[in-house]
């Protein structure tokens, strides 16, 4: 029964993709297209609940082979699913949050051109993401990995007639390719060492791996994870990905796809555990990204870009958690982050919807009374991400930071703490600038402000509830329900068991950091609105650097994009002059040869053939006289022949 449910989970969205993708434009209206879309994800969610409740009761992982895909020699790859507690956690996030976002999209995308196309891509994304988290081997993981990349590309470029959207889509795709190349290398290395790609078999024999090989595999996997999860140095695509519709940003670029890298590292923690070098780099990349992205988030003026940098930063926390071996904490933060970041993005979408497409927070302000529901829900999300207890973000972020502290990674702890302060500050800055103070909108926009329809508000309420209370699945820290559930797959809890006093004081520090960030934002943007400008003017250099995102995009342009373009031009020249020259030369030689052989054929070969033909003709003139047409001539010839035959036989017999 459970096996059947597992098989059904990805099937519903797949049916929706086929139905909407092929027939949606012709056979039914938008009404039916969105019903099919969210209905299918809802059914997947129901199946997921069935599967998860079964696994909670029995505690056993299910491995289901759907289809034997590639077999021959020592290579066997099945389209098969492995559903263990880790997959369950991911499934709940993907289908649950995915369902809510699908419902929200019905309101947000209402009346958009390409409505059916949007839902087709969203469902295709669900299928890929489900394959990614459910696959029982690296090949299925890779299919899902590429599938979500494709859907990300398609949905970032949803407004394909907008140049910036098309460019952002290409950028996301190309940057992800770099990561994918590393991931592919890792898969090849895994196959080279284990002759199989199945997780269970690989992890059973992982002990035979040499330390160098383990490091190589882990680092290659890390490259893949860094690309997909937008970490330094490959994070540049994620802020640009905000060109897509807001539900896409919420679903793909906050809640699910970008967390695939974290999922992959946790899934492969058996390999990472063998290599302290790889773990070190995971932690360093995570910590640096958490801090680095948070600083950029401080000064951005686009509501979605602030959220994008905060996503990069929060993903950094998850990597940091992985890097110190706190896998459960990383997954915990992944789940709470999915809740509150989806909430933040969707409420930001609600704001954008209310203002008719305005995304610049300098042109907002004073919205708290005009769109009260959106305001309340956005505020809940802000508190959750800032890490103020007892909201969801506090528990998971605090746990990661506490692990960093108890593992004596004080540098990483410091980075995370400063990052947490900055996170709290820029999120409250965003809230203040958007919802409080004087209105900075133009008259026309202000007149048309309207609260979003219920179809958008209700999913927001559910997400708000989850952001409020979702943290309690991991309460108390390190011994919560989630920790016990994930214990079989994420390794045993930390061996550095901290005393209750340390845990409590770390919690106090974390919450005071968050509250201090709030207080600073309150001072700068509510009590003393001109102060922020003065501060910016004082630190002009730092401010412009941050505003221009440390010029990383420009640096990459200079280092990679421009040389690539130059190389392209060089290759174009080479192609036109050298390769085309050779081709043309060969062509001309062939032409000459053809002329020569035409002459030879006309004069030599035809001559010979004609001689043979004419000779035959002459001979035939004589021989055909033999055929007189008179029967008795033939009879005479037969008799003569018989006689001759008789004579010959006689001679042979006599001899």
């Amino acid at each position, binding site marked *: 029964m459970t096996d059947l449910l597992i098989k059904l989970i990805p099937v519903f969205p797949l049916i929706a993709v086929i139905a909407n993708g092929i027939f949606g434009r012709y056979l039914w209206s938008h009404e039916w297209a969105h019903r099919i879309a969210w209905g299918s994800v809802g059914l997947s969610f129901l199946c997921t609940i069935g599967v998860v409740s079964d696994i909670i009761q029995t505690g056993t992982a299910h491995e289901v082979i759907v289809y034997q895909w590639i077999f021959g020699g020592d290579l066997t790859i099945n389209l098969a699913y492995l559903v263990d507690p880790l997959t369950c956690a991911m499934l709940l996030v993907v289908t649950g949050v995915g369902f809510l976002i699908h419902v929200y999209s019905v309101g947000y995308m209402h009346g958009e051109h390409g409505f059916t196309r949007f839902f087709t891509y969203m469902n295709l994304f669900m299928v890929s993401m489900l394959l990614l988290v459910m696959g029982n081997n690296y090949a299925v993981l890779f299919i899902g990995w590429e599938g979500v990349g494709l859907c990300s590309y398609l949905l970032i470029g949803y407004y394909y007639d907008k140049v910036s959207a098309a460019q952002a889509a290409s950028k996301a795709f190309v940057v992800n390719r770099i990561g994918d190349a590393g991931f592919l290398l890792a898969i090849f290395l895994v196959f080279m060492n284990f002759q199989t790609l199945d997780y269970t078999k690989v992890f059973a024999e992982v002990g035979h791996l040499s330390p160098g090989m383990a490091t190589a595999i882990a680092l290659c996997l890390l490259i893949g994870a860094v690309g997909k999860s937008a970490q330094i140095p490959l994070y540049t695509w994620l802020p640009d990905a905000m060109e897509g519709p807001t539900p896409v940003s919420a679903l793909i670029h906050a809640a699910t796809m970008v967390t695939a890298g974290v999922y992959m590292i946790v899934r492969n923690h058996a390999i990472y555990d063998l290599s302290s070098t790889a773990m070190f780099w995971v932690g360093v990349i995570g910590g640096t990204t958490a801090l680095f992205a948070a600083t950029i988030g401080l000064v951005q003026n686009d509501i979605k870009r602030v959220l994008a940098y905060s996503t990069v930063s929060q993903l950094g926390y998850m990597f940091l958690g992985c890097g110190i071996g706190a896998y459960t904490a990383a997954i915990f933060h992944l789940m709470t982050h999915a809740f509150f970041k989806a909430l933040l993005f969707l409420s930001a979408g609600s704001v954008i919807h209310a203002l008719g497409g305005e995304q610049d927070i300098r042109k907002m302000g004073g919205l708290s009374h005009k769109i009260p529901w959106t305001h309340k829900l956005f505020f809940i999300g802000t508190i959750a991400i800032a890490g103020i207890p007892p909201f969801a973000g506090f528990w998971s972020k605090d746990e990661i930071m506490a692990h960093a502290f108890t593992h004596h990674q004080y540098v990483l702890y410091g980075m995370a703490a400063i990052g947490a302060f900055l996170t709290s500050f820029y999120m409250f800055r965003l809230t203040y600038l958007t919802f409080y103070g004087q209105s900075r909108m133009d008259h026309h926009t202000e007149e048309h402000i309207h609260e979003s329809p219920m179809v958008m508000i209700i999913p927001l309420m559910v997400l708000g509830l989850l952001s409020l209370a979702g943290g309690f699945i991991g309460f108390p820290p390190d011994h919560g329900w989630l920790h016990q559930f994930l214990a079989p797959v994420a390794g045993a809890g930390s061996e550095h068991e901290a005393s209750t006093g340390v845990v409590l004081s770390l919690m106090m520090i974390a919450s005071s950091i968050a509250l201090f960030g709030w207080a600073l934002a309150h001072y700068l943007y509510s009590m003393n609105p001109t102060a922020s400008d003065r501060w910016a003017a004082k630190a002009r250099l730092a401010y412009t650097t941050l505003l221009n995102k440390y010029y990383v995009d420009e640096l990459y342009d200079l280092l990679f994009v421009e040389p690539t373009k130059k190389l392209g031009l060089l290759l174009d020249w080479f192609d036109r002059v050298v390769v085309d020259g050779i081709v043309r030369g060969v062509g001309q030689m062939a032409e000459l040869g053809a002329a020569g052989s035409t002459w030879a054929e006309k004069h030599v070969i035809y001559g010979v053939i004609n001689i043979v033909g004419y000779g035959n003709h002459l001979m035939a003139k004589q021989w*055909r006289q033999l*055929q*007189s*047409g*008179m*029967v*008795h001539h033939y*009879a*005479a010839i037969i*008799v003569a022949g018989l006689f001759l035959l008789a004579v010959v036989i006689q001679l042979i017999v006599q001899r």
Partner: protein
Amino acid sequence: MVPLSAYVAVSAVLFITGLLGVLIRRNFIIVLMAVEIMLNAANINLVAFSHYLESMAGQLVALFVIAIAAGEAAVGLAIIIVVFRGKISTNVDEMNLLKW
């Protein structure tokens, strides 16, 4: 008791007669009759050997030959009639339509 060689000699004489008739005579009807003579020469051989070897197979084949000879005569005469209608002649030399 007539020896086998006598039958064979008679048969040979008859066969040569028929053969010469086919090759030399120009009248289609005579040619046809000469063919009959050749068939009968063969029949004599068959029956004589059948008796000599004490096997009924030869006589059986002779009966078949007689039947085929009857058929051959019928077809041959029909062809002669058709050709005669076109040519008003039964001269074999004038029938050379089969040449190249």
